């Protein structure tokens, strides 16, 4: 049994099913949570009718979406129009493969895990843009173009922010970065200013990649009807909706693994899976909080923020992190030999 489970493909399959199911469930009920949360912030009650406290609202929403008519516009590019929604979910979920939920709970412990996360984040712009183009609708196209512009702009600060933990810990494997933090303290405070600023930068840039408020100009409803999702009906729209929340959840998990010590316990408590879940959900909740507090940026303000402030700031952070490591701020870690490349089995 053990030998069978340690086959990387079987392992990936089993953990993949577990992680995908868990993420999908959390995402569905996070929509309920967000509606309640937003309701309370605005002196409303949120969903109350379906089930106790409206808890069955996600199921009702899914049923409603499934029943709706599936419309493809007459002049749309049918193939691309239908391919785009599942692809958004695919890429949003993809990054979760290398997120370590616990010491052993990781679907695929790639030794280039951070790069894999960045690659998946970079790919997310494609289905959104394909959807915008294939809809043959000017609002959808504008939304898609904005999404691509925003995606490639914010990928640069995102990469730089993710480089900081890589430089500090000397590894590109996410689980190695977490183990380093178990030993030396969370990066957010063990590398005082650099770690905290890098965390902020990573958080901001990933919010922009996930098209969350205040960076959701690709679907700015006051300007673009519904952006790329204008022409989508039923469950295809539901997939876009789901992908946005999934992406947000996954970036919360990545941020807590890279900067908040992953599965490490708070205040010397025993490490474990629950800490990772707790940190992820706290960050996830913070994103809701931001969403219902802030307004949306204008498109030009968005680009100004990225290119004039975040990119130079990211460059400075990477330099600072390199200097930090060079002058040996983490005692005894400057000369650690690189970990031996992990055997990847049949690969």
């Amino acid at each position, binding site marked *: 049994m053990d030998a069978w489970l340690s086959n*990387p*493909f079987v392992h990936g399959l089993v953990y993949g099913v577990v992680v995908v199911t868990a993420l999908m469930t959390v995402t569905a009920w996070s929509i309920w949570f967000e509606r309640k949360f937003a309701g309370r912030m605005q002196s409303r009650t949120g969903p109350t009718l379906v089930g106790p406290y409206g808890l069955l609202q996600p199921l009702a929403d899914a049923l409603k979406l499934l029943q709706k008519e599936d419309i493809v516009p007459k002049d749309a*590019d049918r*193939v*691309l129009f239908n391919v785009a929604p599942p692809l958004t979910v695919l890429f949003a979920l993809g990054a979760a493969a290398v997120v370590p939920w616990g010491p052993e709970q990781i679907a695929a412990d*790639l*030794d*280039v895990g951070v*790069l*894999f996360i*960045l*690659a998946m984040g*970079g*790919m997310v*712009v*494609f289905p959104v*843009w*394909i959807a915008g*183009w294939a809809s043959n609708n000017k609002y959808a196209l504008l939304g898609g*173009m904005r999404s*691509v512009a925003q*995606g*490639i702009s914010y*990928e640069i600060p995102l*990469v730089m922010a993710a480089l900081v933990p890589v430089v500090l810990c000397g590894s*590109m494997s996410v689980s190695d970065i977490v183990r380093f933090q178990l030993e030396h303290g969370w990066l957010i405070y063990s590398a005082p200013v650099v770690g905290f600023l890098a965390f902020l930068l990573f958080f901001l840039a990933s919010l922009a990649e996930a098209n969350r408020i205040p960076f959701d100009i690709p679907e700015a409803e006051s300007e673009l009807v519904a952006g790329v999702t204008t022409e989508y009906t039923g469950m295809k729209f539901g997939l876009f909706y789901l992908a946005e929340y999934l992406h947000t959840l996954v970036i919360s998990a990545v941020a807590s693994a890279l900067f908040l010590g992953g599965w490490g316990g708070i205040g010397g408590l025993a490490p474990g899976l629950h800490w990772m879940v707790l940190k992820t959900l706290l960050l996830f909740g913070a994103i809701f909080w931001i969403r219902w507090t802030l307004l949306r940026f204008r498109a030009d303000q968005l680009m100004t923020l990225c290119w004039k402030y975040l990119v130079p700031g990211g460059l400075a952070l990477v330099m600072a992190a390199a200097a930090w490591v060079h002058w040996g701020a983490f005692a005894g870690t400057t000369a650690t030999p*690189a970990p031996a*490349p992990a055997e*990847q*089995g*049949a*690969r």
Partner: protein
Amino acid sequence: MNAGNALFIVGALLCLVGALSTVIARSPIRAAMGLLITIIGIASLFLKLSAQFLAAIQIIVYAGAVVVLFVFVIMLIGADTSAGPPKSGGSVGSRIVAGGGMAVLSGLGLLLLARFDGQPVRFGPAAVGHGDVEAVGGLLFREAIIPFELATALLIVAVIGAIAVARSKARPRPAPPESHESKRLFHGPLHPRDAQRPLSKEPAE
């Protein structure tokens, strides 16, 4: 067939399908998407060679940046300008020349791979870890540092040159029209008598 071979077959199929659709697709957008599929296929071939770093970089750089740039260029030029079948389709002769040239080139490539005694050249197995972070980093920053830095300098020069070419020359701005103080106040035709008056009723100092 083990899992590695399955990965190879999937990657190779992705490459072929993507490359074919890049060439065949009428709509430039679909061609770009075909290119994207090819790039993902190449990345999975890198994975098969256990060069995970190269695979990730392939996706980030080529899919995340280069194809996005293609998409931008297509959108700037206009996706519809080149859509639809070509008007005349070219003469039969030109098609024969193009197809024949392609066949000759592919045959030459095959010949180069297969020695003249008919035995195909077998490449040695890829070294373990030839494409991981340490190997590529060592190559870039130790052995090939000078060519690498020269290439970056060249790219920067090219980027600056492109910006310089693309930006139109700064034209001298037309001088702002002379505005009289009272015209600024009333936006109307100015009586010469009023021009002498102070702007406010308070006595001038």
